[in-house]
């Protein structure tokens, strides 16, 4: 069941939470809404589910407009950030609730609950109350409850944010496997890029209520459409300059700027891990510090005529040979991106 979100806008008072966002989600895909907190991702999810109504625009599920339908009639499974399990009901009662309110026959209800308990590995917890479960278990109960009425679509709001890092990793893999088994069209919200890229088929990057970019994880990573996306996806170096004869030059770095008029101000963004540098005299810069970040190493340098430069390498990279504070380096830029300079550049 595909989902189409067409030009939705949502305001809360004078605050615009979602601004003219359109999304196209293909049937059976697992998509991620990725972006910083407070950017409107959850609001989009709630509008799709019918828990909020958009001020403008419409939501189409499986070719049918659902705007006139109440949340209860949309048959969309929703997993809440803090799970929202019914605290006075046992695990089995929680999972069975959606079937019970639809007056499903008792026997089929019992079977469906038992199947879901098996599917989600909750055996032995049927009679526990939510307060007697761990975070990861609550999460799985919430997913089982949402899946019980066989929803057309499954929406998950920050599904991994309330569990600790170790459990989170496991739950990600588990969600991906579950999706591969069930193929329910699913959307989850996250502010963690590694979560989005490791789990989702397709990523929608949302910032300040607007859609910045959509695509597969590779497309977004390799070709960030906006400066925001480029900055959001990891550490970057930012240099501003003016185009001269088809090139933007900043210190020793030179990037082709085709079809841009001379004198146009542009911003160059270099990802910290899209750089090569090695020890060389006289070189184009000097190393200031070398920081160990677990399995990666970060080199802080100063480029002649351009300013600070940050680069990251795997810890065992041969490029790091001889790199130490004070040494001169050469730099090679494999990929750089140019963006129009904002009219009002942000302060330091």
């Amino acid at each position, binding site marked *: 069941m595909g989902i189409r979100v067409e030009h939705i806008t949502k305001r809360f008072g004078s605050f615009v939470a979602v601004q003219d966002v359109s999304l196209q989600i293909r049937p059976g895909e697992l998509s991620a809404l990725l972006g910083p907190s407070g950017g409107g991702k959850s609001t989009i999810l709630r509008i799709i*589910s*019918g*828990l909020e109504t958009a001020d403008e625009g419409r939501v189409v599920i499986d070719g049918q407009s659902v705007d006139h339908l*109440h*949340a*209860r*009639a*949309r*048959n*969309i*499974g*929703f997993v*809440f950030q*803090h799970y*929202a*399990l*019914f*605290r*006075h009901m046992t695990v089995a009662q929680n999972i069975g*609730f*959606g079937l019970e*309110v*639809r007056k499903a026959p008792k026997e089929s209800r019992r079977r469906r609950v038992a199947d879901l308990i098996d599917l989600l590995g909750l055996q032995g917890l049927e009679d526990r109350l939510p*307060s007697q479960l761990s975070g990861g278990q609550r999460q799985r109960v919430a997913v089982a*409850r*949402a899946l*019980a*009425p066989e929803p057309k679509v499954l929406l998950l709001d920050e599904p991994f944010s309330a569990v600790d890092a170790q459990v989170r990793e496991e739950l990600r893999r588990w969600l991906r496997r579950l999706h591969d088994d069930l193929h329910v069209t699913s959307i989850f919200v996250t502010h963690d890029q590694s979560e989005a890229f490791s789990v989702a088929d397709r990523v929608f990057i949302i910032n300040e209520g607007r859609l910045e970019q959509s695509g597969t994880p590779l497309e977004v990573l390799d070709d960030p459409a906006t400066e925001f996306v480029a900055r959001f996806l990891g550490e970057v170096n930012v240099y501003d300059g003016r185009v001269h004869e088809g090139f933007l030059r900043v210190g020793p770095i030179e990037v082709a700027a085709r079809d841009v008029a001379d004198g146009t101000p542009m911003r160059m963004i270099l990802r910290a891990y899209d750089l090569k540098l090695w020890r060389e005299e006289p070189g184009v810069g000097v190393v200031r510090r070398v920081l160990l970040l677990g399995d990666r190493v970060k080199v802080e340098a100063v480029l002649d005529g351009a300013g600070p430069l940050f680069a990251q390498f795997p810890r065992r990279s041969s490029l790091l040979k001889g790199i130490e504070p004070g040494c001169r380096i050469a730099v090679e830029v494999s990929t750089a991106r140019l963006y129009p300079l904002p009219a009002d550049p942000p302060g330091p």
Partner: protein
Amino acid sequence: MSDARPDPFRTRWLPRRVALLALVVAWMALLLFVPLGSLGVGVWTFGPLAVLDQIGEAGGWPALGRTVVVAIVSVVLNGVVGVAGAITLVRHRFWGRRLLDMLVDLPLAVSPVMTGLAFLLVFGRGGLAEPLLSALGWKITFAFPSLVLATVFVTLPFVLREVSHVLVELGTDEEAAAATLGASSRQTFWRITLPNIRHGLTYGSTLTLARALGEFGAVLVVGGAIEGRTDTATTFIFTAVDERHEPAAYGMALILAALSMAFLVVLERLKRRQARET
């Protein structure tokens, strides 16, 4: 302890501790134990059976019965109105909500005697509602309905406030979850909201009951404490003292005190159970 160095803090402040404890005990005795105790002693010296007889002779049992009925009706009415009002005030946004929210506490702020007087002015002779009431043939003031009316008003805030606090704390996630699972608003209320607010509801109802049993000023003004028609347990005590029927007054007061104690125990248990479940 046979420790060579006793706790210096303890030793040094011991006299003060004793003095503080003595002060607290004396204060409690003055305010609580002596009056309650003397009630008990009073009843005991007259003889419990004689006291019961005297209450009966002075017409105390119907008065107590009236109080109990009024209290139960207040609990039921304010239970329903309190839950509905709390949901309206907490879950909905409408024009005038803040004002309404403020007015809910009015019964706690104004003197019950004033409340009674206000009801007299509305429902009594020459009052605003008189034409309507006489057309219907209803009599409210100086009759049983006035007791209910006054008590319901005075006890309005308890359930509403308790349930409001619980609703605010609960948030709307569980109700939203029920909706996405296909529950109608009625199903959501009965299956999710009501079970979640049950402790607040019971707590508020117990407060309502206790307050309703003890209400005096409003029911006196609006009902007139007419013997055999509008006198209640509290106005009975007042009249009995006035007419020098001390044993009956002591007895009734002791009964009300015992009921209050029982409610305190219930409230304490509720609080503890609530703490356990959250």
